[in-house]
Structures are given as C-alpha cells and as structure tokens.
C-alpha cells in the first residue's frame, strides 16, 4: 500500500477504506445527493458494507437494510457475482454484465469491481461501480443510428453525384434536339411547336433536377463557410427584392422593421441568403396556398444583447400541431407532389447551425407562423 492512496474515514460516513487518487473523486461524486452512480463497498467475502445514495432510489428502501447481506443476494444469478469476486482477486479488477433483481424484476446491469484495502491493511474488500445496462445500450443504439445516418449521407451524396452524368447528357441531347428542329425543313408548324415545347420541358425539368442535386450536395458538403463582414439590412433588402415577383399575385404585404442603426455581421453571405430565401419563400407559399388576399409578412431585424434575431412572421394558415415536430426532417414536405423537395428547412436548419446560429419557430394554426433566425453576434463588435 503506498502513500498516494486516499483513505476514507468512518467519521465522514464512509466505511474505512483506501482508494487510489483517481478513484476517490468518483467515489465522492457518487455520494452527492443527485448522483446516479451506483457505488458499493463489499468486504472480502462479498458482503455489502456500504451502498451509495443512488441505490436507495433504485431499491426503494434504505440501503442500510442491505448492509451485512451478500451482494450476490441482489443478483439474479448469484454465481456471476462470485465469479466476478474471484476474478478481482486474481487481477485486481473485474467486469461483469449480470442482472440484478430490482423490486422483483430482473434488470440488466454492468458491474466494475475493484479490489480495495482497509487503511490499516487488516481487511480486504472491494469497490463496485454498477451501471444500468440499458443506459449503455441506448447510447450504443444512438451511436449506431448516427453512424448509419452518416453512412447513408455519404452514400446518397455519391448516388446523387452520379446522377449528374445522365442529367448532363439529357440536357445536351435536348439542346441538340432543338438545333435539329430549328434546321429541319418540311415540318408541319404544329408538329414543330409541339416538339419545341417537349424539348423545352425536358430542359426545364433537367434544371429542376439539377437544383435538387445541388441542394442535397450543399447539405452534405462539409467545407467551411466563407466568412466576411456585411450589412444585414442590405442582405435582407436584396433578398426581399428577389421575392418581389412572387409576392405580386396575390399581393402580399411585406413589412420590414429594421433598427435605425447599421447591423453588421461576420458570416457567410451566400449561405445566410439561402436560409433567408427559404424562410421567406416558405412564408409566401403558406399564404398563397391558403389563397389569402390579406397576406402579410413581417420581417423584423433586432439586435439582442448577445445575438442578432431575424423574425419572419406570416399571417398564413399556420402549421398543424401534428406536423410541427417534423418540419426540420429531411424530405418532409407538405407541398403538393412535385412542388416541394422537403429539403428547404432541413438544409436551412443545418446551415444556420453551421453559422453558429439556430432556427426556432412558433405557429398557431389559423393565425400564422413566426420563424426566428438567431445568429451569433461578433463579441468584439457592438454596433
């Protein structure tokens, strides 16, 4: 036994035991009131000397009731505990996954057993750290799921990328078709028009496919944003101009509300514009779909103490409650078939996060929806 080992004393309410410096903090942390760590100290025979407070919550009775009883008495398979004790005797430590009987039910746990010594070397004992197995399994499942999603992302990016080749061919073929059609003689005027329309439609749909591909690839793209400083008022005004044709029929009133002073931000201009375009066109579509004649979109730019907030508030039909938790999901769309890609908000949400911000929303069916884009403010610049 060397001097670096830390004794715990009975007058602190702990059994007298020596722990290594790295274990002592774990032990003490396990004795805070709100701790979930299940700690126990066993004597050399495997009888319980001490249980940490978390055991009380788990067992539903005072831990002192179990003192002096065998730890294996808690186990569904007492032999597993005996096996673990002898493994700890041989190696100093042991690990075992075995069920405990909790209120009559068998629950899966993982146990880590560490040999410990009494301070005056007269006794041998063990420290046991117990963890609920399902907690680990849940973590594991999460990791598997995240990993699978990441893998799916990579695969779909590759597939989507491959689509570029056939699409390139289609668009060049359509272009060539149009040239041939222009040169062709002896074609009936109606046929010529019909064929021209067909080829134009091919080109149009090819373009649409390109934009879907572009959005998906933007989504999985991992390059860093290109940050520079710019005025948010200017960005908002330019973005609103892009939408001017969309808000003419039916007329939607766009009410900007910007503070008098300039608000600048260091961020990626293009990415931020992409997010704003998406939020604004969602608002426009919401109003249009409801065939409203009193459509109104408020665009509010605010400088909050630590953040910049851009609110985009529409008085459209709102998002039904059962859809609210899905709107950021990939490929989730409420637009009619062929209209929405289900990418807009999913991508915007990702982009906002990448820019250090976030998107939040509130929606009341029948009254409208408010989207909030929160962006980090450059801490050194207080304009």
């Amino acid at each position, binding site marked *: 036994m060397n001097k670096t080992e830390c004794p715990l004393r009975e007058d602190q309410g702990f059994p007298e035991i020596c722990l290594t410096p790295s274990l002592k903090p774990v032990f003490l942390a396990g004795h805070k009131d709100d701790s979930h760590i299940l700690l126990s100290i066993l004597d050399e025979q495997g009888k319980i000397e001490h249980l940490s407070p978390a055991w009380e919550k788990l067992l539903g009775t005072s831990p002192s009731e179990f003192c002096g009883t065998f730890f294996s008495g808690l186990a569904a398979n007492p032999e597993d505990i005996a096996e673990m004790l002898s493994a700890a005797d041989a190696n100093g430590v042991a690990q075992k996954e075995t069920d405990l009987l909790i209120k009559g039910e068998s629950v899966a746990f993982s146990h880590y057993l560490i040999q410990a010594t009494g301070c005056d070397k007269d006794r041998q004992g063990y420290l046991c750290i117990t963890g609920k197995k399902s907690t680990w399994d849940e973590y594991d499942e999460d990791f598997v799921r995240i990993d699978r999603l990441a893998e799916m992302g990579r695969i779909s990016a590759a597939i989507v*990328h491959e689509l570029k080749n056939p699409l390139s061919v289609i*668009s*060049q073929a359509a272009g060539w078709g149009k040239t041939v059609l222009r040169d062709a003689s002896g074609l009936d005027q109606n046929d010529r028009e019909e064929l021209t329309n067909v080829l134009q439609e091919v080109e149009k749909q090819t373009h649409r496919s390109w934009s879907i591909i572009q959005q998906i690839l933007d989504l999985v793209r991992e390059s860093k944003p290109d940050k520079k400083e710019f005025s948010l008022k200017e960005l908002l005004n330019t973005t609103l101009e892009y939408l001017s044709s969309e808000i003419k029929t039916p007329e939607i009133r766009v009410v900007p509300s910007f503070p008098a002073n300039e608000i600048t931000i260091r961020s990626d201009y293009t990415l931020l514009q992409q997010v704003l375009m998406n939020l604004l066109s969602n608002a426009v579509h919401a109003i249009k779909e409801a065939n409203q004649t009193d459509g109104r979109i408020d665009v509010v730019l605010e400088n909050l103490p630590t953040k910049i907030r851009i609110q985009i508030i529409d008085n459209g039909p709102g998002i039904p409650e059962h859809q609210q938790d899905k709107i950021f999901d990939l490929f989730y769309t409420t637009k009619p078939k062929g209209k929405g890609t289900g990418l807009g908000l999913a991508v915007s949400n990702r982009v906002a996060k990448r820019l250090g911000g976030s998107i939040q929303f509130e929606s009341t069916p029948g009254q409208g929806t408010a989207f909030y884009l929160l962006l980090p403010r450059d801490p050194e610049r207080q304009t």
Partner: protein
Amino acid sequence: MKDSSEIRVLLVDDEQTLLKFLSKRLLRDGFTVKITFCGEEAVQAASDRIYDVAVVDINMPGIDGLETLKMLTEIQPDMQCVILTGLQNPEDLPQGTEKNAYRLMFKPVDFESLTQTIREAHRHKLKLQKEKNPREGSHAQDTSKDSRIKRIFSKMQKLYGIPDE
C-alpha cells in the same frame, strides 16, 4: 458562326454519350472537334494534330484529368485547357488543377457559356502566340518540317473531307 470556324477543340470525357451530343452541337456551331474518351486517347490525338482548346473532364479511368492536362500542355504548350468537371467545388479538385487550366467549369454547363469560354481560350492562345512571336500567325510555335506537313495534311483533310481516323 464565323469566329469558330478555325477553332480546333479536343474533347476528353469518359461519358461517351455526353461527348456525342456536345460534339454535334459544337460542330453545328462551326468548331472543328475531336472527341476522345480517355486521357491516353487525348494525348495520342494531341501528338498527331494541333488543337487550340482542350475541354477536359477530371475524374476519368486511366490517366486522370490533371495528368492529362499536364501532358497535353507539354506536347502543345500553347493549347488552352478548360476543365469541365462534375465535382462540386473548386476545393474538391486535385491540387494544381486551377493553376494548369485556362478556366474551371462545373457541370451542368450551359452550352452557350461553354462555347463562349472556348472562344475566349482561343483568343487567349492567339494573344500568347503573338507575344511570343509577333510575326508569325497562329501556328507559330510549330515550325518543324514534320508538323508543317501535318498541318498541310490536316487542311487537306478538312477541305476534302478525309475522315479523321
């Protein structure tokens, strides 16, 4: 299209159908076009004949686009290379691509901007040649007897419609 009649374009892409349509459209616009489906073929073509502009894909089996680019400009230092890639961003390209190319273009390419870029690249080539050799014309770098004969032959080929291969 008067100004494209003398522009010789070498297309390199493993997507054969794409080149089929692209070359038809370029020919229709008056360019002289040679299509090759891999780097090796392109290099072979460049050692047989002078080209003004090469349009090169990056991801190809065999010699990749960047290597092809380097070999082409080694054979014909004045040839201008336009990269036409399906990759998404400039940073996805192998290092040195930008330095070796006249311009980077990303698929999907708009046909009109492609032809415009080819014409610009051609003008750039003429300018370079004039700077290097103010008296001579567009084939100034190519003065060996052998290539003169080749040049005459290629003109005859064009005039009399002798097939390329």
